[in-house]
């Protein structure tokens, strides 16, 4: 590698110690706050509730037991966990589909109007506020009044149409959808912005040529635009999957995980800080990272490829 060394500017050769001084603060803090605790969590996931003994000691005779993987048995088979996984899956399907679909729709439409910047700012605005703030905003929209007057917008619309008001956040058949709608409201702007940038990079001549040849706008969109921006769509989808897997605040603020709305991250928090089952909580955290890693790796790889092309 001598040739490469020669091309290195002289200023870069500062002796052996100096570079490490620049890197040291970051290295130390990241070791202490990411590497060590990450590995520690892995170890804890094989321990019992107060991390003093192996997880196998928590086994109850006569009931199924996975030995040292007992916490994982709980995390993967307990009814409350299965419910959380089901909910998370619902979140992923609906919220990722919703944000990417709506984001694409708005990006395409906004491209054709003069008030594009304003429309995009409005759609992106929820990204600036906290999940907690968004939770309050939507809790108010979903408000259910037991009396005559409905101060929640949705129920006011329902009653003015002569229907019965609905308790959106406590009705098990509806509440998950109500929460997912909030997430979609928040994250559509993110998808829209990335997809809009990708759409603008589609060469105008190709679109014009297709239109001159008589292709309808619908065909232009599905047969030309979508295939060209497919790599970007893929990155957006994976980013959203990762985000949705870790969703916590919306559920915590709006229902507290009650009425069958729990998701994985809420279970993890609950096991640790409410039930004081650190082993189980750690196992859930490990499962969470195992679920995100494939998307992450794929995402980073795609991102690099795109950067390389640019």
């Amino acid at each position, binding site marked *: 590698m001598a040739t490469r*060394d020669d091309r290195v*500017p*002289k*200023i*870069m*050769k*500062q002796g052996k110690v*100096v570079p490490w001084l*620049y*890197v040291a*603060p*970051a*290295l130390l*803090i*990241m070791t*202490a*706050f990411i*590497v*060590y*605790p*990450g590995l*520690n*969590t892995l170890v*804890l996931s094989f321990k019992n509730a107060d991390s003093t003994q192996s997880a196998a000691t928590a086994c109850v005779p006569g009931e199924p037991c996975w030995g040292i993987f007992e916490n994982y048995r709980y995390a993967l088979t307990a009814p409350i966990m299965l419910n959380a996984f089901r909910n998370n899956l619902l979140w992923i399907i609906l919220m990722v589909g919703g944000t990417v679909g709506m984001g694409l*729709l708005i990006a395409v*439409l*906004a491209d*054709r*109007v003069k008030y594009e910047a304003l429309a995009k*700012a*409005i*759609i*992106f605005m929820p990204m*600036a*506020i*906290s999940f*907690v*703030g968004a*939770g*309050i905003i939507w*809790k*108010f*929209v979903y408000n259910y009044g037991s009396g005559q*007057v409905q*101060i929640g*917008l949705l129920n*006011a619309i329902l009653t003015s149409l002569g229907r019965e008001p609905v308790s959106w956040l406590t009705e098990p058949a509806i509440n998950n959808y109500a929460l997912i709608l909030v997430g979609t*409201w928040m994250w559509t702007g993110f998808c829209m912005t*990335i997809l809009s940038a990708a759409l603008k990079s589609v060469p105008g001549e190709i679109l014009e040529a297709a239109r001159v040849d008589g292709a309808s706008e619908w065909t232009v969109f599905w047969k030309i635009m979508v295939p060209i921006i497919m790599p970007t769509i893929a990155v957006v989808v994976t*980013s959203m999957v*990762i985000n949705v897997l870790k969703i*916590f605040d919306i559920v*915590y*603020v709006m229902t507290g995980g009650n009425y069958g709305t729990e998701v994985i991250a809420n279970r993890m*928090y609950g096991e*640790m800080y409410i039930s004081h089952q650190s082993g189980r*909580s*750690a196992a859930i*955290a490990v499962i969470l*990272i195992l679920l995100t890693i494939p998307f992450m790796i794929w995402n980073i790889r795609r991102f690099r490829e795109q950067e390389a092309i640019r």
Partner: protein
Amino acid sequence: MITDRVKKILSGIPTHVVLVGLCLIWLIPTIGLLVTSLRPFQDINQSGWWTALAPPRGAKDYSQTCASCHGSDGKSIATADLTDPELVNKYSRSIKLLAMLKKDIEGEPHLKDAPVPDPQQAADIADYLKRISGIEARPRFTLNNYIDALMGYRGTANYVTDCATGKQALDLKCDTSDLLNPRGMGRAFLNSLLVAIPSTFLPILFAAFAGYAFSWLHFRGRMWLFALLVGLQIVPLQMTLIPISRLYAQLGLSGTFLGVWLFHTGFGLPYAIYLMRNFLGSLPRDLFESAYLDGASHWTAFYRLALPLSTPALASLGIFQFLWIWNDLLVALVFLGGQHPVLTYQISNMVSSLGAGWHLLTAAAFLSMALPMLVFFSLQRYFVRGMLAGAVKG
């Protein structure tokens, strides 16, 4: 051709309808929150926020039943000035009003041919009379909710009234020190700033150091070390909460600002290093070469050259990191809790302890959103850039 232009405009209409419709759907919930936070709390639970500008309840019934004799302002007939507070005060209940309406006045029935209103209507009219006569007149909009939320007021009236009459709760002093009441949003706002500013500054500083070393200093293994550090982005925050909170309990760091600063610094670094290295690495090499030839040391090159040039990257990164921390609930919940409540913690606490105290909740939520909105609308370009590059962060 004119027909072509008309056609073009017509074909654009569905686009406008859908887009404007979607923008409205996106805006209306937030507008509802803002309007509600500005209404008197008595009104919030009585009528929807969209009626904030509508005439008061009972105005319609009054104009149908009474206005023909008493006039629309209630002052028209000499025998009874309906806006006289003392007169109206007698009809605190609609039953009384109904009884009164059935009575004869000077041998003539009070309402002549007009139908006597049903109790609900009578109640509305009584309400309306109180409104126009000044007994219960209150402005449509007020800032009291914001004051109450800032001071942490939890009574049944409002902070200003209670303080004026000396009926305030024990934890309130009715001077500026109430802004620091641990139950209030004023204190929480301060705490959020105390958490967010160092937690933004520290990781960016360390990332600038590391990014500089990774792009302009030569040492063994820098490529794989860089890849390793950036790869740590995949570790979700949840993965580290348990060991760190145990460690903090041992070190006495739980519930301290220092603990939160360090945690946010750790988790901000992978992405910050990635961004700083990419930015610094893309600066022209000649720049650093000539600086070296002019006798600059690595420190001068970093401090006088690399840092000032990377202002755009620092701005995007800073805004992203600041808002991420400002909006975070989980870390604040675990490491600070109630000892130093931040905005998000305070609000989520109000949700569970206040139930439907919408006047406080809406004002509190808007207080917490004010700063991010300001940053968003004033620095939109940097904000969007930072957000896009870092949205996958732990």
